[in-house]
């Protein structure tokens, strides 16, 4: 009797086969929008360094309907990115205090609190 193991191929659309894979791929996809927004911000800094007229042009583009839609889409994806990553932080950073594990909810809550605090600092610094 001879052995003849059969190897099944992975389907090209494997990430549609299960909800958890689709969510994972969505999370991965969000990083693309985070990158796009970083490029957008960097462009803003470059335009700022080129003087008032260049900066005003950038602000006009950013406040145009297309610019606002772009930023809203990026914000949506960035929020999904952050929320899904905060949800898994207890796995990556389990804490033990006095020999007892810190509850997952607490670790996640601290991340949200830090997020809010950093955002507040940025908003205050920006004079909002």
């Amino acid at each position, binding site marked *: 009797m*001879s052995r003849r193991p*059969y190897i*099944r191929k992975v389907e090209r659309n494997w990430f549609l086969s299960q909800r*958890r894979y689709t969510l994972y791929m969505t999370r991965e996809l969000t990083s693309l929008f985070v990158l796009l927004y970083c490029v957008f911000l960097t462009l803003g800094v470059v335009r700022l360094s080129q003087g008032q007229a260049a900066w005003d042009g950038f602000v006009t583009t950013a406040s145009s309907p297309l610019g606002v839609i772009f930023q809203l889409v990026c914000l949506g994806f960035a929020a999904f990115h952050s929320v899904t990553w905060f949800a898994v932080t207890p796995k*990556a950073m*389990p804490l033990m205090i006095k020999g007892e594990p810190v509850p997952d909810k607490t670790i996640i809550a601290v991340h949200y609190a830090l997020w809010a605090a950093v955002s507040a600092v940025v908003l205050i610094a920006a004079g909002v």
Partner: protein
Amino acid sequence: MSETITLEVLRYNPETDSEPHFQSFVVPYHEDWVVLDALNHVKDHIDSTLSYRWSCHMAVCGSCGLIINGEPKLGCHAFVRDYRGGVIKIEPLDHFPIERDLVIVMDDFIEKLSSVKPYVIVKEEKPVSEGEYIQTPAQLKVFKQYTQCINCMLCYAACPQYAMNEGFVGPAALALAHRYNMDSRDCGKDERAEVVASNEGIWECTFVGACSEVCPKHVDPAAAIQQTKIAASLDWFKALLLPGGKK
């Protein structure tokens, strides 16, 4: 006629089949049956050629891992009643070659498991007269959940990274490496790092998290791998920044 339930089982006979195909079996429905009981019924009463692995029937031996309606599960851990009124589709574990019917070839997993040296490595063996290697309950608590792995390979069947990159060491082996690295009696971390911190080790994992979702023993390999990534990064920084830290 008493109630029945239909199983659709993936069959593959390497001597006669060019590729696997599904075969249906109608078995009696019992409230207290698990899928493994249904397979045993087929084997005992309908078709004795059906091949599958099993042993303990109590989620301890890790032999009966299957894909049941698309989900990696232990055959002894999946109740038939949860599929009542439907069809139970039973396939061998994904991402492994099929030896025959529901039996997969697990050589790759076994090699990877042994490559991470999943045992306590001490600096120097001490004679029995010097007593045990002492460990406190608090030290045990740090890694206890990772000791629960039964090598059932459900995590490998759930991992898309393993499916697409056969070099990936994989969830269970990396979780066990973490288990021994965290053991207060162990000094083998550097020996394991060669495999664990290699490109095909922890860094191949992109934190899909499916391994932890399907684990029947709540080992949480995804957590183990992310923690190993953090530890490996800290080691790298220490080696880079501290005087005399470079090896």
